[in-house]
């Protein structure tokens, strides 16, 4: 039985890891773009970004998951109802094509947007904490803006944001369990199957070991990265 449970949980954890790594892959660069938006000198873009980040950070991830999963389907159904009542137009026809997302795609989109917003604030904090003297030193040496960002500032920002990033990324490991809300077969769901089918509760507790092992691994990895950058102080 133990082996059977382990096998099922491994399959579930595979999905957890897939969600985790794809979320990071997309949200890390997207967060940087959002952070540039929130630091933009173009006011409308700045405020739009700030309001967006406020909405995403200010509502539960679980709610965002549900909205993204069911939202398009609801819009599609509403538009089809309007057409049935005699409405016409390209836009309403377009909206009528909206369907419920694929479960995994919905979860991924919600996670990427949510985490990109949190990351964007970490990036912003990191970028704004670099002393203006570093930019000025690059400037008087005739460096271009992008040279200053990539050759002077970026590594210093990375050094500063590793601790808060590791915090956020470890939170992500555990947040993936929210995917079960819309029935994505991740590790918690796979453990709950045993409750329903065999009346076994312990597989659910056993999932904790998977999370612990993985976040332990990440902790070691981030500790290593921090140590790697110990050679300079900024």
């Amino acid at each position, binding site marked *: 039985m133990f082996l059977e449970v382990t096998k099922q949980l491994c399959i579930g954890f595979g999905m957890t890891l897939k969600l985790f790594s794809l979320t990071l892959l997309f949200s890390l660069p997207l967060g940087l773009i959002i952070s540039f938006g929130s630091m933009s000198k173009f006011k409308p873009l700045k405020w739009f970004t700030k309001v967006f980040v406020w909405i995403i950070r200010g509502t539960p991830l679980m709610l965002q998951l549900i909205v993204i999963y069911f939202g398009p389907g609801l819009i599609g159904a509403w538009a089809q109802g309007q057409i049935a009542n005699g409405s016409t137009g390209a836009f309403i026809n377009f909206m009528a094509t909206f369907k419920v997302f694929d479960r995994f795609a919905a979860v991924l989109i919600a996670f990427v947007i949510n985490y990109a917003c949190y990351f964007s604030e970490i990036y912003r904090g990191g970028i704004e904490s670099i*002393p203006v*003297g*570093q930019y*000025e*030193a*690059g*400037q*008087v*040496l*005739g*460096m*271009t*803006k992008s*040279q200053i960002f990539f*050759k*002077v500032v970026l*590594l*210093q920002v990375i*050094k500063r944001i590793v601790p808060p990033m590791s915090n956020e990324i470890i939170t992500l490991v555990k947040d993936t369990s929210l995917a079960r809300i819309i029935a994505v077969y991740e590790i918690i769901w796979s453990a709950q199957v045993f409750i329903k089918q065999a009346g076994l509760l312990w597989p659910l507790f056993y999932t904790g070991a998977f999370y612990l092992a993985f976040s332990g691994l990440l902790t070691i990895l981030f500790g290593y990265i921090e140590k790697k950058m110990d*050679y*300079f*102080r*900024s």
Partner: protein
Amino acid sequence: MAELEIKNLHKKFGKTKVLKGIDFSLEKGEVVSIIGSSGSGKTTLLRCINFLEIADEGEIKVDGNTIFKSGENITSKKMQEMQLLFGMVFQNFNLFPQYTVLENIMLAPKLHAKQKYKNDFKMKKEAVENIRQQALTLLERVGLTDKKDNYPCQLSGGQQQRVAIARALALNPKILCFDEPTSALDPELTGEVLNVIRGLKNSDTTMIVVTHEMEFAKEVSDKIIFMADGIIAEEGTPSQLMDNPKTERLINFLQK
């Protein structure tokens, strides 16, 4: 012909007028010190000359050519060219912490060489080798050859400032500017930095030094400018200013 000519420079921040019409000129190899109490506009003047601030009004000429005139549009390429005419040494050194001493000096020249030679790998390699040799020569000049592979955080303030001077020199600026180069240093470390500046004077480097070190200004300068309230209140040779100050303000300033 004057190497540097500043004409009628004005700068304000919001409603505060910081520079109210500055005129002065500098011959090749001359050293000018700018003195004055804090808030007199001396650092702003230096920042306008280095284009860290853009003056609202006025003109800057180098070797007779107008390189800056207020109201004219400045492209980023022009900006880069303008900035490369001047070197700047900051009060807080502003070394790049993630690079070694040698890398700090070589970074900007290397980037410029890359821009210039783009895909010509042979030329690029040759240029980088020259840059390296020049950087090592500069390090020898500031007496830090043995520190070339150290990181800035491993150096004392005085050593960091000497690296910053070498870094500025690596781009062969026409005019080297210092913004209170010893103000962030412990008293026992100022000497080594001032010695480097003395050495530069002997090799005919044109320099503008904003400083609070009166004795040093007197010794090293060909000309001293005393600023007060955004204008040049008095200027002249060190002995004229220090020994026979004319304005009341300078008399008061020197007594402090």
